[in-house]
């Protein structure tokens, strides 16, 4: 059937994304390597501007007009997505890979009833009859935890709360049973209790349908609770890739360490001493070679302006840093 890739569901190889702005070109993503193994939920963590959302869009080939893939490959089940044209990608979106993003009422058409929008998916993509599609829609709404699904299907998006709207989106995205679900900040803006409910829902549906999750977020708490493997992104680079416990208990990259220690936590009363120093580097003046954390790194060395090695420090744990390069 599908060309497999040693159990790697998604693999980004040397992926670069370039953004064309009024003031010049920006390498928002620079030669990253990232893997989502089948069945392993992976997190991609970073602050705003780190390039994580662009990465998600690139996988779906839904980059904005000003952005383009400047190099590298995106392998999904062994096939290179960058080589596909739009028609071929249409078969991938929704069917093989689904993307949900930040809850937004505007993601749903305000003029169409909720049920109609979901039913459309069934009709257009799965070829169901209108009657069957409506039945499945109501079933789906119930499955995502919306009470009185029949009634809810007949109402309009502005009647939905943020949490409900997000559930509807999740339902729609999973309707076609994709293999990979990319969730980009799926709960930002939602209340804490709703957030927990949404993540529970995602977890349940994943288990039910055997979907692999790639969670993109800036919230380390979410990562801790939902991911098995984590990649940390900074200024277009993936600086660390490790199992989740290793990330929190044995972070290797100086940025990861600084990031971990700089976030406020409800379970600790005192503020940490070492909060994040300085600001994210200016995207227009990034070094073309070498480390992009160099301006803020407390452990920078001479050779940090040289091309940075991707070093394996442990089983499934890799760091993008000169500090760990063995003199081998």
């Amino acid at each position: 059937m599908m060309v497999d890739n040693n159990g790697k569901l998604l693999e980004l190889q040397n992926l670069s994304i370039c953004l064309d702005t009024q003031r010049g070109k920006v390498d928002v993503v620079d030669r990253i390597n990232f893997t989502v193994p089948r069945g392993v939920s992976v997190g991609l963590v970073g602050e705003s501007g780190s390039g994580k959302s662009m990465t998600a869009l690139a996988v779906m080939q839904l980059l904005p007009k000003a952005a383009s893939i400047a190099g590298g490959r995106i392998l999904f089940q062994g096939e290179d997505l960058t080589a596909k044209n739009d028609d071929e990608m249409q078969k991938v979106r929704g069917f093989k890979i689904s993307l949900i993003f930040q809850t937004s009422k505007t993601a749903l058409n305000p003029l169409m009833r909720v049920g109609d929008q979901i039913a459309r998916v069934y009709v257009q993509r799965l070829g169901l009859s209108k009657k069957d599609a409506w039945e499945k829609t109501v079933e789906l709404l119930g499955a995502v935890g919306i009470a009185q699904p029949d009634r809810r299907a007949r109402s309009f998006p502005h009647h939905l709360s943020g949490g409900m709207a997000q559930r509807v989106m999740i339902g729609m995205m999973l309707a076609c049973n994709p293999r990979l679900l990319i969730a980009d900040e799926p709960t930002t803006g939602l209340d804490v209790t709703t957030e927990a409910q949404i993540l529970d829902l995602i977890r349940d549906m994943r288990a039910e349908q055997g979907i692999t999750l790639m969670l993109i977020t800036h919230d380390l708490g979410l990562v801790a609770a939902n991911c098995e493997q984590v990649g940390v992104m900074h200024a277009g680079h993936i600086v660390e890739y490790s199992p989740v416990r290793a990330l929190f208990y044995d972070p290797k990259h100086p940025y990861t360490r600084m990031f971990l220690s700089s976030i406020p936590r409800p379970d600790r009363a005192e503020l940490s001493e070492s909060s994040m120093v300085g600001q994210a580097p200016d995207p227009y003046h990034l070094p073309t070679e070498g480390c992009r954390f160099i301006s803020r790194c407390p452990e920078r060395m001479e050779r940090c302006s040289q091309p940075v090695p991707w070093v394996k420090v442990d089983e499934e744990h890799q760091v993008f840093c000169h500090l760990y390069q063995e003199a081998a």
Partner: protein
Amino acid sequence: MTEPLVAVKDLTKTFEAPTAVGTSTSLASRVGGFLEQTNVEETGIEEAAVKEGVIRAVDDLDFNILDGEILGLVGESGCGKSTVARCMLRLIEPDRGEIRFDARPILDLNGKDLKAFRQQAQMVFQDPMASLNPRFTVEKTLAEPLRVHNLPVNGSRKKRILELVDAVHLRKDHLNRYPHQLSGGERQRTVIARALATNPRFLILDEPTSALDASARVRIIKLLLELKSRFDMTYLVISHDISIIRHMCDRVIVMYLGRAVEVARTAELIETPRHPYTQALMSALPIPDPDYESPRIRLRGEVMDMPGTGSRCSLASRCHMAIEECSHTPQELAQIEENRWVACHRVSGGQI
């Protein structure tokens, strides 16, 4: 006992849905079609009729803020905390109730007196980008409160602006920048500096860190704490982010659907929440620790208001501990320990 700096009593504010000014969309949607959502079988409450009517944003709220303390107001969207803040500053007029600042009632103030009050009580709004005029430079933004109140009484305005810029750790060259030329953290500082311009005694901080990146939040918290002790102020911190509350507040009030459900010292509230809603809230917090385990307390359904809530506990239909009584009697805040108030029949009845 000393007189509190701010005393709020019986504060009530009702909006007519769904086009009420100042409500969040979740408030509006509470009255839209989804009022119909109930758990009929579980609680035996008859299906509520949809009323194109009234949202009780704030419902009979009482609390005090002591001089020099940092009080936190916590709750999820639609709980009324933003409305409370706006009532306290007379940006919205409450329907009922009394607010005293420094022992003087403020709800009747007008004209010069109101202006004088505004000098004393200021607010840092939620979204720094939205609360700055996009065509004003930082300098012009900071000049506004000084101009309006004819400050400084002695000395040059420019000098005062420079003092403010310095106090929030901005630089002189920020003065000529426009909001879109500043980073999120710099905008936040500008907004803080503006609030400090009139040397207020009382500062309301509405979600002071929500618009910031995770790593910038700590810096702003530290700044706010520094400013508080330096200028001898009292804070009311409104947030849905418990970590901020943890790091800043002495006491916390938890709000749900316009009412206070629990009041306690911060550490105690977070570590041993007593009210079922607070318990659910705390258990849902994402903790950045993969080994962290805590029993998740789940509330059924979503935040919703129902007509006739005045006659029952507003959490009844969702609560994991609800009993018969909860559907017949509204909850009242009762003191169960020194420094701990809870509005729950079962807790105050000593059952839990």
